[in-house]
């Protein structure tokens, strides 16, 4: 009798060990990597690239960001993010839109902007959708702009119209800072909002929320009718439209406690919101001042100064502005002359140069 149990038990154990080994071996990301390599083979004629593909073994790829204290493994599946040939492929093998030029993956990772769980290596684990016990699923649609807000502190954030509009609404239209503080500025009648975007889910009271139990929904309903969500609230109902409530929600979600290294912050710079229209002025200034005599652009131009095609990935607006105003002060030993540009002209040129792709 015991022998029967022993044999059966041992067999079952062996089977379980085999199951465990298979379960561990058969990873989701290996399939995506295989598909990427075969697509790459089809798309490329370059012999060198083909050899690289042949040599490639399935592995976990990650971007280690010490400055943000995180590891992003999204690129294990999203391998084609920097390969323009994959612009039309379905996810996860699609090229990333151009904003990566200003925010290279090696310096920003992925989750700093997209949220989600970067440490994961599965679709579910990465929190593409709501994930239990992970309170920061990936941003969808315009909520993505909430991410911009953690570094971009200017009133008008390029590429984030909803967030920028909300900042104006906060200060001017609804005067929220009369009662609420953000980063020490504002009143104390209402709660401090500096880190409200990072409040854990269970710190919100969903008793009276009609929609789904998510943070965006809580904020939206609260903005539409404060007392409906918090009966004892003294917050006035300012009759926000749906768009306004949505924008304000984006703003609230952008107020996180995530640590941003100082070199990443873009504070209110000399770029004023009025100068939002990009570069018709900048382009003509660029031609007028004959910059291409010394600087090359898209493969054409002089070599006395550095190539400007991708300067946006190296320099930020503040640096460029200062440099246009006084090149030799910003770069000692520089041969670039002082063109005696006005602030407005320097602004235009900065905007133009930043928009280059």
């Amino acid at each position, binding site marked *: 009798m015991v*022998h029967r149990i022993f*044999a059966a038990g*041992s*067999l079952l154990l*062996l089977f379980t060990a085999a199951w465990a080994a298979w379960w561990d071996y058969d990873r989701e990301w290996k399939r995506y990597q295989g598909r990427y390599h075969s697509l790459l083979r089809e798309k490329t004629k370059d012999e060198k690239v083909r050899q*690289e593909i042949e040599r490639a073994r399935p592995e976990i790829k990650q971007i280690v960001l010490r400055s943000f204290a995180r590891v992003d493994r999204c690129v294990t599946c999203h391998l084609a993010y920097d390969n*323009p040939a994959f612009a039309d492929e379905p996810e996860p093998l699609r090229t990333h839109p151009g904003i990566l030029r200003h925010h290279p993956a090696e310096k920003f990772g992925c989750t700093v902007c997209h949220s989600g769980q970067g440490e994961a290596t599965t679709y579910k684990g990465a929190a593409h959708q709501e994930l239990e016990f992970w309170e920061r699923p990936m941003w969808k649609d315009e909520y993505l702009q909430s991410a911009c807000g953690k570094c971009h502190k200017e009133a008008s954030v390029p590429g984030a119209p909803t967030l920028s509009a909300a900042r104006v609404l906060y200060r001017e239209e609804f005067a929220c800072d009369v009662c609420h503080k953000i980063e020490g500025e504002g009143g104390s009648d209402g709660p401090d909002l500096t880190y409200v975007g990072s409040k854990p889910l269970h710190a919100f009271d969903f008793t009276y929320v009609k929609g789904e139990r998510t943070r965006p929904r809580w904020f939206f309903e609260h903005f539409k009718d404060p007392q409906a969500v918090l009966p004892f609230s003294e917050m006035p109902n300012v009759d926000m439209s749906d768009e306004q409530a949505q924008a304000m929600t984006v703003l609230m979600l952008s107020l996180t406690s995530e640590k941003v290294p100082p070199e990443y912050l873009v504070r209110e710079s000399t770029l004023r919101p009025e100068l939002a229209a990009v570069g018709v002025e900048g382009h003509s200034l660029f031609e007028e001042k004959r910059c291409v005599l010394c600087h090359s652009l898209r493969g054409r131009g002089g070599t006395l100064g550095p190539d400007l095609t991708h300067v946006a990935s190296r320099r930020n607006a503040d640096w460029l502005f200062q440099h246009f105003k006084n090149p030799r002060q910003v770069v000692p030993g520089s041969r670039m002359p002082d063109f005696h540009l006005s602030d407005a002209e320097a602004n235009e040129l900065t905007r133009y140069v930043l928009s280059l792709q």
Partner: protein
Amino acid sequence: MRRRHFLSQVGWGSFWTTVAAMFAGLARTLYPNALYEPSRRYKIGFPSDFPAGSVTARPEERLFVYNNPGEGIHAISAVCTHLGCVVNRTNEGFFCPCHGSRFDASGRVKAGPAPRPLSWYRVSLAFDGQLVVDANEEVKPGTKFRL
């Protein structure tokens, strides 16, 4: 009795196979799949950042990058093969200040205790157009990457 013996065989066979499998699993588990170390595949910039005929020192990646007109790009490691100090570039090649090893412009050892020539690393082009030097992969000295 025979059935009991057969069952015994099956049992013991499965048991020892599982034990072996578990040791193998243990070894696999201890083999790291991802490292927190900085990557040794360096994106060093665009070809236009390295004008023809130039030699660029990259102290952060401990490399020297050469753009040879008509032949292509090559990258030589700046790490002395003796005990790992960073070498300096001279007119004739390289010199290591730690123990006095001397190398010619191709990295071959001319003098001093260095046992091997300086490594040449594989240069390639990333999809965004930037040059990539892979310090995990050595190539034969003289190999140049044509753009």
